[in-house]
């Protein structure tokens, strides 16, 4: 509990009062949709109001319309990437002072303080220090707002990933993207509002709960998008059913459904199901179009490193993210790293081997994404978030051991575009890069800030569930005012 708010945070008021309080900020339609999604109101009202994904006016006047979350699954090492700690050179080979307490995740060997495995250099006008694992991202230093003082609530991947995505270490809550879509709807009804693209090597630990809508309707859950082939499940039927043959089916279905409906006048539920088929039919062409990179110029493909290794996969994902942003998708999460251990950023076996590999996979694509968004004038309205579920220890896993263990006490993330100040650092870890010391950023603060940048107030964006107005940040979280442009 890192703030000084009411010690009685649970639930704020009866729902009706909430509605009254919020009245000014929402359009009538948005209000109706918001209420429709709420269990306080009857399911009938829910069924007969408009699509829960309809776009809604923002609560706040801010810039970001979309968010791209670059999820470095496995936890990248802050002292090797974005948290420059020259002092580690001095302490190299010494142990972390005994008064620094921590949980030794997985009971691994505790070794010695180890300086960054690659050199840090200043980037851009701002001179932000970024290491040689991200030489191309460094060229965008003036766009980045690096949060060096992040901390989180778990040292284990499974629960920390869930926390980074949903605010709590316990599974079962809606994820950040679900909150965004619940609050804002989507601007393109032919595409899902919230898209998750996984690394080909596998999903994140804990799986589905990472993009779940928890206790909200499944409408708000992340939709897994595959970067090649059909982007979403069940987009195509069997081969022999061509688009024309399927049109025949839909026409017959519409005829039968229309007869059924005409004997049941005023049945909004039946009517909305009829229209959902037309929407589905359009999605079948709109979604493959959104991931069809053949429409992109050679120059663009080259910019992202598509068609060459090791950048091809993440390059594609980043380019798809840009295309989705252009098409009004609200929230996109791109995983780098999948499965377990070295297939992710989980660099127990060696920072150089692991981060060298994964950094090379994502550096050019991320740099290209920032360039491309800026060139198209999209960066202003697109918030880019980079980070993992926690950080890594400044010490090794044994004498001369090349890897580092988990560290939830201090780590770095960065934001770019979407109304954040560029070229700044916010917050600090101690001299070792071990724990967050000044201007600490808890993941609730990060979430509050992301929502804020997207025009949502994390305190009033609530969903009534089992007697309580639930929110993403629960009882914690403050918007980090200093990073807002």
């Amino acid at each position: 509990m890192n703030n000084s708010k009411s010690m009685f945070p649970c639930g704020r008021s009866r729902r009706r009062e909430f509605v009254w309080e919020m009245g000014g900020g929402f359009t009538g339609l948005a209000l109706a949709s918001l209420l429709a999604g709420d269990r306080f109101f009857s399911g009938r009202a829910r069924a007969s109001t408009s699509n829960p994904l309809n776009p809604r006016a923002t609560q706040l006047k801010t810039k970001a319309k979309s968010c791209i979350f670059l999820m470095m699954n496995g936890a990248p090492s802050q002292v090797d990437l974005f948290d420059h700690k020259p002092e580690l050179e001095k302490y190299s080979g010494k142990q972390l002072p005994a008064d620094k307490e921590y949980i030794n995740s997985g009971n691994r060997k505790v070794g010695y303080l180890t300086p960054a495995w690659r050199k840090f250099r200043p980037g851009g006008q701002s001179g932000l220090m970024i290491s040689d694992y991200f030489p191309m991202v460094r060229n965008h230093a003036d766009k980045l707002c690096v949060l060096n003082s992040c901390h989180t609530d778990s040292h284990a991947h499974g629960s920390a990933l869930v926390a980074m995505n949903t605010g709590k270490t316990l599974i079962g809550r809606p994820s950040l993207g679900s909150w965004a879509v619940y609050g804002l709807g989507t601007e393109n009804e032919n595409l899902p509002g919230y898209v998750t693209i996984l690394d080909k090597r596998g999903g994140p630990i804990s799986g589905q709960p990472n993009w779940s809508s928890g206790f909200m309707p499944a409408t708000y859950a992340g939709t897994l998008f595959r970067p090649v082939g059909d982007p979403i499940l069940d987009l195509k039927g069997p081969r022999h059913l061509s688009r024309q043959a399927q049109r025949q089916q839909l026409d017959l279905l519409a005829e039968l459904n229309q007869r059924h409906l005409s004997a049941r006048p005023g049945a909004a539920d039946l009517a909305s199901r009829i229209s959902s088929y037309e929407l589905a039919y359009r999605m079948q062409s709109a979604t493959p179009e959104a991931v069809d990179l053949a429409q992109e110029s050679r120059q663009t493909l080259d910019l992202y490193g598509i068609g060459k290794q090791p950048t091809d996969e993440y390059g594609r994902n980043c380019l798809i993210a840009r295309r989705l942003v252009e098409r009004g998708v609200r929230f996109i999460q791109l995983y780098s790293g999948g499965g377990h251990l070295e297939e992710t950023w989980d660099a127990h076996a060696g920072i150089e081997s692991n981060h060298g590999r994964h950094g090379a996979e994502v550096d050019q694509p991320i740099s290209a994404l920032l360039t491309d968004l800026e060139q198209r004038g999209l960066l202003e309205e697109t918030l880019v978030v980079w980070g993992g579920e926690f950080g890594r220890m400044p010490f090794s896993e044994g004498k001369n051991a090349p890897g580092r263990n988990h560290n939830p006490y201090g780590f770095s993330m960065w934001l770019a575009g979407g109304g954040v100040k560029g070229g700044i650092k916010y917050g600090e870890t101690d001299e070792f890069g071990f724990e967050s010391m000044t201007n600490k950023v808890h993941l609730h603060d990060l979430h509050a800030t992301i929502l804020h940048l997207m025009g949502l107030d994390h305190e009033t964006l609530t969903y009534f569930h089992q007697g309580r107005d639930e929110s993403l940040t629960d009882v914690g979280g403050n918007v980090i005012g200093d990073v807002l442009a």
Partner: protein
Amino acid sequence: MPLARNLLLYLLATLIAPTVIAVDFERDVAPIFITRCLECHQGSEPSGGLLLTSEAGLSKGGKSGDAIREKLLERVRAGEMPPEKQGRSQRLPAKEIAVLERWIEAGANWPDQRTLDWFERTTRYRAGRDWWSLQPIKRPEAPSVKISGNAVHPIDAFVMNKLQQAGMKPAPRANKRVLLRRLHYSLTGLSPTREQLDQFVADDSPKAWENAIEELLASPHYGERWARYWLDIARFAETSGYERDQEKPYAWRYRDWVVKAFNDDMPFRRFILEQLAGDEIDARSEQSVVATGFLRLGAWNDEPNIPADYEYDRLEDIVHTTSSAFLGLTVKCARCHNHKFDPILQEDYYRMGSAFWPGPIAARSGGLLGGPTTNELGYDKVLGWTDISAKPRPLHLLKNGERLHPRKQVAPASLSSIPSLERRFDPPPDGAKTTGRRLQLAKWIADPDNPLTARVLVNRIWQHHFGRAIVRTPNNFGFLADPPTHPDLLDWLAAEFLSSGGSIKHLHRLILRSETWRQSSLHPQREEYSVRDSGNRLWWRAERRRLDAEALRDSMLQATAELDLTLGGPSFKPTISPEALEGLSRKSSAWKASPVEKQNRRSLYIYMKRGLLPPMMTTFDLCDTTLSCGERDVTTVPTQALALLNNAFVHRRSEYLAGKLTDDFATAEERIEQAWTSILKREPKRDELLLAHRHLNVQRDAFDRQAGVDALAPKMSMHLRADQAKTRRNEGQVESITDISGNGRHAFQKREDRQPVLNPNGFGGRPTIEFSKRDYLDVNGSPMKGQYATIICVANDHGPPGHREIISNWRRGENVGSSVFLGLTAENTVRFCDVFNKAGTIPNRDRPFILTAVNGEHLAAVYHNGRLLKSQSNPLRTRKLDTPWVIGQQGNINGEFWQGGIAEIRVYDGALDRHERRTVERELAERYEIELPDAHSGKKRSSEFLALASLCHVLLNSNEFIFID
């Protein structure tokens, strides 16, 4: 006008009132203290040290020590008290300030011994102990309403009464077809057959309805339907969740226990006692301990950040599930502080928690998955719960719920919310193995005088029969609950339920015999009524309902007569497309689908894995399994349409039904009629018949046009067929076979003594190449372009015992353990590379057969005549493709020679999908007159067949099929 009136009131309150009305403490002052001040100024640690519950507290004042009454007034006037909340002023209305002023002016009289209690009464902001749901159930008299004709069912009397008061009329009774269909779904989740419907419509006997109800209540499928609702409430799943998402063995036995409890109409008291304390009851049995699985079903993290904190999270899971399920109270909200809205003290949370605290809640060996040992539980192969000590660690109330700030030790007891029932739990007798706390808690919950238990239960039963409950928030009967639409009816049902000894079947009978339930979902005055009562809170018509995820899937299988109605036992894992498995961190190992023949069971038996709930089910609003769910969402989204339009499961159903109809009926008319009968349980109308005919014709023509194109030909990387063989001097010895795929992978044999022989009249009258002794062929280059490929051969075998190969690139010293080969072993089992080295025997191997080997990203498998022999859901380890390939022996060993005919070998680049593979296998089967074992697969998928499948598919997507009127 309102402004003027407010002004007037203000004047009245501030100027006139003091002179004419004396302030009364009970009437005027106490409510202000209770509503405005006590939230903070009460308890053992009142805010600012100021206790406002008693005169003594008021007189003593706070830490600041000022003359408290004046100070209080000053701060209230200044708007400092109550303090602002979340940036909003909580300043008291002028009227309330005036009351306090006058009270203090008049000497601040506080009645002797009067102690204020924050919970004593309901205020604008929260519920007190006088809250309606906490009051005793008094059986109300059914109102007398006038309805022409027969005696009025009490349920109808309650509903009619309110409708009449509103000047509204109920909808007419639904027709008999609608009623029987609704009844079947309501009680069993399955559809009636057309025969059952026709019979019921024709049955004019007065007992027909009662008989139908009784018949279904006696069906074992009744329990399957109603168990599912309870499983949602019990947050049922069969794995732990989180990183490893381990299976919780025997969770399915709990599911079966619930099914049986419903089928046996277990008295509700026992239903409660066994689930919470089946290990503590006198009649303890293996089954009653299985029931304690209720406490074991939650998600469980084997690697919590701080294990000592995680104990409290687990405690919350169990307290929350128990209190939501049985009491409709959100007790968990009191973990950190007194409940914000309901009369639940923080201590109450810990009192209830103390019942579960003696269980295996602390971190222990991971293998126990958060449960007791077999020894502690007393039963093997049971997922159950028991205390691990009769003298457990004390449980302390935690300030703000924080473990490091323990306050007083909490004595095990019931909740205090219902003072007349409040009781401490007795300590266990000497020598007891458990604390007996759960049994006492269970008995407290099951006490007939506990008004919540029966109200919550009857509300749930009503909810599932009507689509909406009387209290529309079924897991919450507190202040934030929706008020009951018919409070008297709720109490009448609860009283009936109690006097029946807690019989749920009795409730079903009551409800289903009412006219209210039998109303039509259509109403002649719909337009007017839906404005007056859009939420249908007065029950002026029935709610039309969409089939839920389970009923939808079951109904599809039922429509095609594929549904396997086997009861109980371990769950099955449905096939989940590789695309949908991508979310798992361990893609290949995490999901092994059950054999296809086990997959047509009811949806209740689908294996519930927390990390991977079946996408088809979640799309149709299967609820999350982490928290108790009293009511599922009902959404209508395009992804549902996509699933029904495109998912392979639905297409398999339509094609299966089309196959059956093609087999059993000769004419298009009959097939159309039977499609309507199977899916919609009625015959098609004339215009529908015409539409269906037109659809069949248009689709057949479209499929005909497509069939000319062999869509798969471009994928072939090698195609050797015996009729392409060139023989030496036309005497039969094969010198070469041209690769007709156009890739130049010709086969040849230059050594005359090793050339196989062409048999022009081999399989089904078509040519084969006969290999005997030491015959073989070399291949020009690699038939496989990449790692993923499909090899399909047509051959027969009269080989002697010993390995023998059809095709191979094995090479000593270069390609051991990474080569590709397909053949038979000495035991006459199929082998494909060294991975599937004993994939299963093949019957009648001297007759021609088709062998298919697939290596793909998500599936490597071997099939015999289209029948799966063996598979794995990940690709083979990387194969080395560049060593020389041969046909008819094992690589370069000069041995393991094929002894038999080979008619054709096809290699496709990439793994063919199921449909593609079947297409090729069927084509080959037809060509070489091989019978495929699958009943319908041998049938040519003619355009006519596909058109019929298309029609069935449309019907399975129709609103008529998916909605219940």
